[in-house]
Each structure stands twice: as structure tokens, then as C-alpha cells.
């Protein structure tokens, strides 16, 4: 669900940027980041509408939103005894919405932004239902761990692409690239309030990595993972908890004490790679210590 929401925000922001900014978007790079190309053999990017259709609705694209929602729904169906009815219904509604033929019509022939807004709104509804109806127990804590871990991973992946200037062609100053990043993360307004100096890559990186007030920052996400994992402690074996605490603490330490705003391009790339590795280790840790057979 989190991956879908991130993808929708990125797609929406970049689509709007393709309409409103003079710099052409590198749709191929976006496809590479979020799914494989729809199959143009010469590598030429498709029209924005084709790309959106592929990212959002194409069944052949394993990473598409529609496939993600279907998987989420199937998972939820299997654990209906652990989630509330309201939450299940919100997810089910989402499933029906994205499969509705009108969604495709909006994307290809109408206003794609309206289509994406509808889907984002539905995901917000899902999150709201989860937040307000789920009892604060194991199910809720695991949901949040997964959600914030995925959000952290998406943040890192997007930063890696942005830092290399992959998505916008001819953006010598990087301003358009970083602006679209901020909008994708719903962070533009906070950035404006926090940094009064115009868009600079160092400041954006700092906000995206270590600003604990920004709900999409790496540090915030890791802190949430840690918090929810701590709440799982009474429900789990002590050894497992110690292992997870170590892994998460390692990642938090890496992020909190990085001087990302002072780092050069190579250092940033190296940091992001390490962060991705740490996040992968946390995900692996959950697999091994909570979900795997001992």
C-alpha cells in the first residue's frame, strides 16, 4: 500500500511537471525506477499517458499499482480476522476503484490528475481507517513497521535517482528535479517554511534524511519503525527483539549522524547505498526473526 501511494505521488508530480515546466521529463528513467519499459524496442519513452497507464494499470507490469493493490487485498482477505471490517472495506473499495474502466479512460483520454487524485484519496481513506479503527496490538504494530520501512526505502530510492539527476533532462541547477521530489513527498511547503533560501540540493537532502518533523524523511520513518518494534517487544522473543533493536539502531545511527548536507555527490551516493543496505537488513531481520520458521 505504501509503495503504491509513493508511486502515485511520484507519477502525479512528474506528470504535472511535464505539463508545466519547460524541461522534458525522462519518462524512461521513471519507468526503470518503478517498472520495466512497456516494450518500445528502440528505448524511446512513450507519451506521458502511456507511461501512466503502464505504471498504474498494466497487469503485465508486476510493479504496477493495480497489481500491488490486488496483492494487498489478497493479503488482507487472508487476515480478515486480524483487521477491522472498515479497513477491509476501504481496501476492497480501492481494489474496485482501480479496476473500474473509467480509470483507464481518465488516464488516457481525460484528465490523468483526476484519476490519480481519486486513487490517492482512496489510499488516504485506507490509512485513516487503519489508524482510527485498528486496535493497538500486534497487527497494528506490524502494519506500521512495514509501512514506514517501505516509506524509508522509497525515500532512499527516489533520492538516489534524484541525486543523479535522472528524471529531468537538461536541469543544470537541479531545481526542477528537487522541486518535484519535494512535491512527491508532500514536503514542498515544509521546505519553504524551514529553508528560506530557495531550493538547494544540500537543504533538500538534509530535510529528506534527517528532519524528524518531516513524515517522509528517512529518520522519521526509522524512528517510527523503532517505536513500533519496541511495542512489539512484549509479544516477541527477547532474542528476536534484541536483534531487531540492533539492526534498527544501526540504521538510525547511520542516518542521524550523517552530515548529508555537507556531503559531495559521491558521498551522498555512498550514504544512500549504505542506507538501502541497512533497510534491507531490517526487512531481512523481520523475515528471519518474526516471520520465518525457527
Amino acid at each position: 500500500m505504501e509503495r503504491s501511494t509513493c508511486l502515485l505521488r511520484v507519477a502525479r508530480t512528474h506528470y504535472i511537471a511535464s505539463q508545466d515546466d519547460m524541461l522534458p521529463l525522462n519518462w524512461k528513467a521513471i519507468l526503470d525506477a518503478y517498472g520495466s519499459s512497456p516494450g518500445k524496442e528502440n528505448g524511446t519513452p512513450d507519451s506521458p499517458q502511456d507511461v501512466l497507464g503502464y505504471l498504474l494499470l498494466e497487469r503485465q507490469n508486476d510493479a504496477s499499482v493495480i497489481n500491488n493493490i490486488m496483492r494487498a487485498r489478497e493479503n488482507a482477505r487472508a487476515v480478515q480476522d486480524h483487521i477491522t471490517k472498515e479497513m477491509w472495506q476501504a481496501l476492497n473499495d480501492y481494489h474496485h476503484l482501480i479496476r473500474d474502466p473509467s480509470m483507464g479512460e481518465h488516464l488516457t483520454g481525460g484528465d490523468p490528475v483526476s484519476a490519480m487524485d481519486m486513487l490517492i484519496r482512496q489510499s488516504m481513506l485506507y490509512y485513516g481507517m487503519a489508524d482510527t479503527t485498528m486496535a493497538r496490538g500486534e497487527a497494528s504494530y506490524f502494519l506500521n513497521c512495514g509501512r514506514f520501512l517501505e516509506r524509508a526505502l522509497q525515500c532512499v530510492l527516489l533520492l538516489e535517482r534524484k541525486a543523479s539527476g535522472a528524471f529531468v533532462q537538461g536541469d543544470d541547477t537541479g531545481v526542477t528535479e528537487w522541486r518535484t521530489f519535494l512535491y512527491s513527498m508532500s514536503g514542498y511547503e515544509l521546505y519553504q517554511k524551514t529553508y528560506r533560501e530557495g531550493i538547494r540540493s544540500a537543504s533538500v537532502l538534509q530535510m529528506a534524511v534527517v528532519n524528524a518533523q518531516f513524515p517522509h524523511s528517512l529518520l522519521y520513518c526509522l524512528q517510527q519503525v523503532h517505536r513500533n518494534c519496541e511495542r512489539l517487544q512484549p509479544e516477541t522473543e527477547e532474542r528476536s527483539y534484541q536483534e531487531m533493536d540492533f539492526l534498527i539502531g544501526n540504521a538510525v545511527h547511520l542516518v542521524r549522524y550523517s552530515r548529508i548536507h555537507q556531503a559531495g555527490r559521491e558521498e551522498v551516493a555512498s550514504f544512500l547505498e549504505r542506507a538501502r543496505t541497512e533497510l534491507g537488513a531490517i526487512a531481512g531481520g523481520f523475515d528471519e526473526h518474526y516471520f520465518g520458521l525457527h
Partner: protein
Amino acid sequence: MKGNPLFDRYAPLHAVWDEMFSGGGRVREHYDRFAAAIQDLSPEEMFRKDELAKKLFMTQGITFTVYSSGEGIEKIFPFDIIPRIMADAEWKFIESGIKQRLRALNTFLKDIYNQQFIVNDGIIPASLIYSCPNYLREMVNVPVPFDIYTHIAGIDLIRDSDGSFYVLEDNLRTPSGVSYMLENRSITYRIFPDLLPRNNVRPVRGYTDVLLRNLLWLANRQSSKPTVVLLTPGIYNSAFFEHSTLARLMGVELVEGRDLVVDNHIVYMKTTKGLKQVDVIYRRVDDEFLDPLVFRPDSMLGVPGMYSAYRKGNVAIVNAMGNGIADDKAVYPYVPKMIRYYLNEDPILKTVPTYHLEDPESRQYVFDNIERMVVKRTNESGGYGMVIGNAATEAELEGVKDEICATPRQFIAQPTISLSAAPCYVDGEVRPRRVDLRPFALYGPDGVDIVPGGLTRVALREGSLVVNSSQGGGSKDTWVVGQP
């Protein structure tokens, strides 16, 4: 555009410059790509786009407030979905003209509030200056950061039947409309997907970045994070939507007068953590309401002591106080002389011939030809206080003549200019409606920046020449098409 049922019935107005069509019904070159894109648009599809635009305006709350309307306080800003398109070369001409004009007006303000060379040299009569109610003696000899008075300007342009642009008026106090310009663009790419990049339309979204940069530069304190606020009269002001939009986009606090306090000639903002010094105030409150200790004592919108803080240089105010003398309609005819006097250049943009009604000969001429004239009050704006000779009743004309005779300084007259027309989607049909253009210029220490295009205002009522939103006008998105 033969074959398109919407445009087949479109008939340009006689003797009026049409923005889209030249003589013989040919589409102007800079409209070519847009025309080709909508060539096959059916009436039903056009209707759907119009409905979507209305829905988006409503859901996003893009409104303006009307002071006296039986329908309620907030109204959705009328928007016409067919954009007004300008060629790049034409825009460059306008841009250079506005920059020149703004430099001259700013220099005039500096001069008129200091040495008054232009008066001493007999270019402008002193009586004109001192009889203007917007000339603030309180601003005489007050140092202004970077000598910039007109940080934000909206210059209204119209196009006559021969295609020439004329400056209709300058707005140098609290010009509004920029938020609608930004929102219009965001609606256009929703209703016409992909048309903007295909037409190489120059973006407008950089306005708030430039504005914020200019505001930050004005701060006097040695601070890496100067505090900028946007001072609004409040939610009942007609332009409140714009105030809140700009504050949000720039990341600055939106404050009312009661949120600020002056202590020891320093302006502070009241916060939950105590008082916080304010460095720059982007004020959308008129001069006379800014400081009840100096101006209107009954003002509840301003801050007592703000003027003294400003005078001491402890706070910057944008736009500076006293700009009204430069956008007074009676001073307007002197702008070409200002350009020649201060800049030693010929004016690039034309001004509408204007008659000062204090002069008996001019007054008589205007009275004799009043059906072909527009009479305006020098201190009004928003289209109020204007009498259009060929649209007014006998009683209205006699009434205005009496008022002119009583207080001639308060009026000017201009020949009626035949505003250009552009195709508008009205009640399911495409009809010509009169338009003007308001580009927005930002004057900072680095020079003048002008957002490509600006706001095209439309007189939506058939036959009307009044484009102001408060009197039934609407707006269009304005495209400046770059080189393909």
C-alpha cells in the same frame, strides 16, 4: 478552423482586434498549434472540459470575495477555458516596455519623495502632486531599502483595433490577481493535457520563488533567516484567497494587524513562544489603514507604530507606502515624460491619450465628445467610479458632468479604446469577448523580473468593456509560446 462546429459560428467583432483570428478568418500563427489540437473537439467535449474546470475551481476553493452581493461572501472566480496566446516576440516587446516603465516610475517615486527634481524642472506641476490624496508627506525623505518603492507591480495593458498595446493603468500599491494567474495555469493543464508542452508555453510557477527572494533581500538584520510576513486585512477581504495562497506557496506567515505589535520601533509577531521580530512585511493592507497612529485613527487593520519602525529602518514594507502618487490616473499621462526625463529614452509602450479635467479647454472638449469618452475618478480602482460615455444614460452623463465641475481634479477622461477580443466559451458557444492583460512585475535589487503572460481579464458580459472581477469579469490563462 473550418469544420469545427464551435468555431464555425464564431464571428469576430467588427473593427475590433481579435486575438485568435486575423482578417478573413485566418488563425494567427501563434494560435496554430492550439487550433490544430482542438480542431476535432466536439461541443460535448468542450462542455465537459468547461464543467471540469468549474468543478476544479470549486473543489480547490479558488474564490474571491464580493463586498456587496446577495449570493454570499465567496464567489468562484469565473474562468474561461480557451487560453489567450501571445507570441514570444510580442511578449518580449511588452516585457521591455514594462521594465522601462517600472524603472521610470520607481525613480519618480524616489524623486518625488526626496529632491523633487521633476517638479523643479517643470515637468510635472507641483499642484498635481500635492493635490493627490495618495501623496504621503510622511514618506518625504524616508530612506527606502535599495531605493525600491515598487517591488510588485501590475501594469494593465489593452490592445487597440490596430493591434498596438497601450498601458491602461499602473497598479503600484497592492496589485492583485497573481494567484488566479497561477491557478488558471494549474487548471489548464488539467483540461487540456499535454497541450502546454506541445505549445512550448513558458511557465509561470517561478513567481513566488522570485518574490520570496526579493522579500528576503530587503531584510535589514544580519540574519540567515529573516522573518517575512504577509499582512492581510482578513478573510472578508476580496483578495483573501490570494493572500493565503501566496503565504502558503512562499512558506511565510499570514498575519493580521492584531498578530503584530510594535515595541521600541521594532515590529514583532506574537507567537506561542513569545515575540518574534519581523523583518519584512508584504502588506496587502492599503496605506491609510497601516498605522492608526499616523494615518486613519479608526483603522483596525494596521499596527500602531508600524510607520515609525519603518522610518527607522527596522522593518521593510512591500510595496512602500505612498506609491499611490505614481499610479494616480492624473499622473498617468506624465509617465512618458518621466521615461524621457529619468531614463533619456523614448517610451516603448504607448499610453492612452488622457485629458485633465482641471483644464477648462480639455473639460469642454470632453463634455462635447462625452459619448466617445471614458470618464474615470483618479483615485478609484476595480472599475468603480468609471462612466463609459457610449453606455451611460443621459442622467448618468449629466451627473458626472456636475461632479467634474465641482471637483475637476478628481477626474480624467480618455477616448474609448476598442479593447481587443478573444474567443471565449460562453453558454455552450464560442463568442468574442473583450480582454485586457495584466502582467506582473517584480522589482528587486537584481532588477525587474516579469512573469511570462500574466492575467488576461475578460469582460464576460456581451458588449461590456469592464473586465474587473468585482463587476462581472472573469479571466483566462495566458500563454506565451516560446520557440518550437
